[in-house]
């Protein structure tokens, strides 16, 4: 199978790596080849976190410029930071809830207006899905389940190589049992939201 390439972009603490691992293990259980690259280093302290995953025939997890099939954006500015991974073919899910870094309060950098980011995304990406994952996560019962909202959204993207049930099974193996109820709810909210958009 030609590799399906997923890029996840977020900020330390958003559960980007956990989400990637859930996808990767689900692919493995399905009998597909999968490779993934995670960069943590100083991630714990609010830095940028990205992961690349390739499902199918691939040696290296790193995605070439313009070659991502799907970008899962945990934060709007981070989606734009990863824009070089995207081209016309790329599907993009973008969480619209922002995380403003402290450098902005200190006045040493600035965060563009929401409308600028959204217009830029709309003008570039051919297949863009915007959702407020934070809001949906709170609806599900806990804001930290926002990564599962986005995972649910990914499951609804045309061409995504894993089925909903396969991802849910992997969630069960990777998340604490007592959080499952909320996480499942979050997952389904994300799934339905993206389904409605196409």
């Amino acid at each position, binding site marked *: 199978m030609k590799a399906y390439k997923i890029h996840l972009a977020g900020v330390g603490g958003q559960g980007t790596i956990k989400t990637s691992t859930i996808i990767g*293990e689900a692919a493995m259980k399905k009998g597909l080849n999968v490779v993934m690259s995670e960069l943590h280093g100083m991630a714990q302290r609010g830095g940028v976190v990205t992961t690349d995953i390739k499902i199918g025939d691939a040696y290296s997890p790193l995605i070439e410029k313009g070659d991502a099939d799907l970008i899962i954006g945990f934060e709007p500015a981070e989606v734009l930071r990863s824009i070089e991974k995207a081209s016309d073919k790329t599907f993009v899910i973008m969480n619209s809830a922002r995380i403003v*870094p402290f450098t902005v309060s200190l006045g040493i950098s600035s965060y563009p207006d929401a409308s600028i980011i959204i217009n830029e995304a709309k003008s570039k990406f051919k297949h863009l899905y915007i959702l407020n994952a934070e809001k949906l996560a709170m609806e599900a019962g806990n804001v930290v389940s926002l990564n599962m909202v986005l995972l649910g959204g990914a499951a609804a993207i045309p061409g995504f190589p894993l089925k909903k049930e396969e991802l849910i099974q992997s969630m069960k193996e990777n998340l604490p049992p007592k959080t499952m109820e909320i996480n499942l709810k979050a997952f389904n909210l994300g799934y339905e939201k993206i389904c409605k958009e196409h």
Partner: protein
Amino acid sequence: MNVEKILLEEEGRKLFLLGNEAAVRGALESGVSFASTYPGTPSSEIGNVFSKLAKKAGVYFEFSTNEKVALEGSAAAAAAGLRSFVFMKHVGLNVAADSFMSTAYIGVNGGMIILTADDPSMYSSQNEQDNRIYARLAGVPLLEPSNPQEVKDLMKFGFELSEQVKLPVLMRTTTRVSHMRGIVKLGKIQFPVSKGFFKKEPNKYVPVPANARRMHKEMREKLEKVEEIANATEINKSYDFGDELGIITSGGAFNYVMDVVRENNIPAKVLKLTLTYPFPEVLVKDFISKVSKVLIIEEVEPVMEQEVLSIAGKYKIPVDIHGKLDSSLPRIYEYTPDIVREGIEKVVSHKTEKRRYFKTNVTLPVRPPILCPGCPHRATYFAVKKAVEKLNLKNVIFPTDIGCYTLGIQPPYEMADYLLSMGSSIGTGAGFSHATNQKVVSFIGDSTFFHAGLPGLVNAVHNKANLLVVIMDNRTTAMTGRQPSPSEPINGMGEEVPEISIENVVKGIGVKFVETVDPYNLKKAEDTFERALKEEGVSVVISKHPCALITDSEKRKRNFWVTFTINQEKCTKCMICINEWTCPAFYVEKDGTVKIDPLICDGCGVCTQVCPENAIEVRK
């Protein structure tokens, strides 16, 4: 995935493992008895996993005080006939280098693997030195895995090779291999031998000059044997996709080569080298004789490229050799598939399809890593800064060290002026005090102090330096993921151990002014620093408060979490909390109101001491 699976999952099953986790499984499948490390990214997860599994697996494991000690422990275990595994980040091998070099002369009985996790592009390091050169400097065989499965399999290969030729084996990973996840097919766990026996043979183990001369000769003979193996082994393997170009590659770069060559139908032969030192001369000579052009694709130094150049020269092989030295590929930093594709395009006639990708002109906010909300280091920096201002000291030099507190380089603290390596703040601080008339305040963490700060402090006292050393004791090795440090009552096996009192150690060295203070009490801390700064000679303040990640997990367990908020009626928008205190939980609304994000606030409450209006209150 539950970490226990790395030990308990059965032979034949598959796990989705990080390169670092695969290293542990590989060691356990090889019956490793002794494992030691000093944590450092990108190798840290290896130790974290051992720390959880060692007891159950019957393996002795330690977080050593530094890499040199870690290597020495492992070398002794190997001398006693056990299989031993020592691992560290690339710069850790510099610390261990003295003993590492001798280990190559003395050799081993049980297999010994030394893993160095290099960090091309410096994601979390001060340099990107290529430790493949260390294999050549010391004279030990070198293995370069490309993915987690290979990391695991090469552990077994490495132990067997080590025992066969009685040399330690160096395994070099990079960040992209250590932090790559992939499917790993498991082998059988081998239960370790718990105790070895050391048979005395001083001529074999003590490299006094007469012995060392003999040992060097023996080591070269052993390496000749390894070179024969390298020429024949199936882990040095070629793939045939055409004739126009020969590519020689290793490690993480191999993955990019395979994807780029196959996806773009590049007519190339690929030689993947895995046992790369001693360099397989016969194998490479045959390979480059079959093609007219060779491109060497390797990360950081042109190590293999120089080997290939010398083989071509020695045998007068008419072949064009490309790589870093003719600028076909970048000389520094890690590679990516894009870089590899561009490099290949430069030397072949076959052109790949032009890549299209988007770009943006929108300026994005920067997200540097920051000290956590509730971090005790913030309080320490704040208090030292106030004390320095109060005494009106100018041009104070702040040598810093390696840990979360290096982030003190950022505004508004800006108290990190000079840094060389682990433990260097005290040595350099003393140097500055002799070389200038400026006041010196050195910052060092607890774990770093034990790692390599101690000799510096002894030296400072002995040579009458004039400096204040602030030991920031946050009760752990925070930056690499909270491994226990010697000042904690627990070790890497989870056993209770006596706490080593930093205060007693410092007093024992003969420092006269030694005080311990809790930086959360800003006023008291400021006062202590002020008195310390007035001292002549070496003074030490131990600024002691647990890392916020420790207190957070305790609070989470107890389910007791207060947060703070700003009483807008009292707040005068003086911005001291933003501009001087700079806890990331604070933010300013568009209309100028200052707020605290309850999701980020850790509830430390220290900001209440910073606010001159007493506007910060517990959120009800």
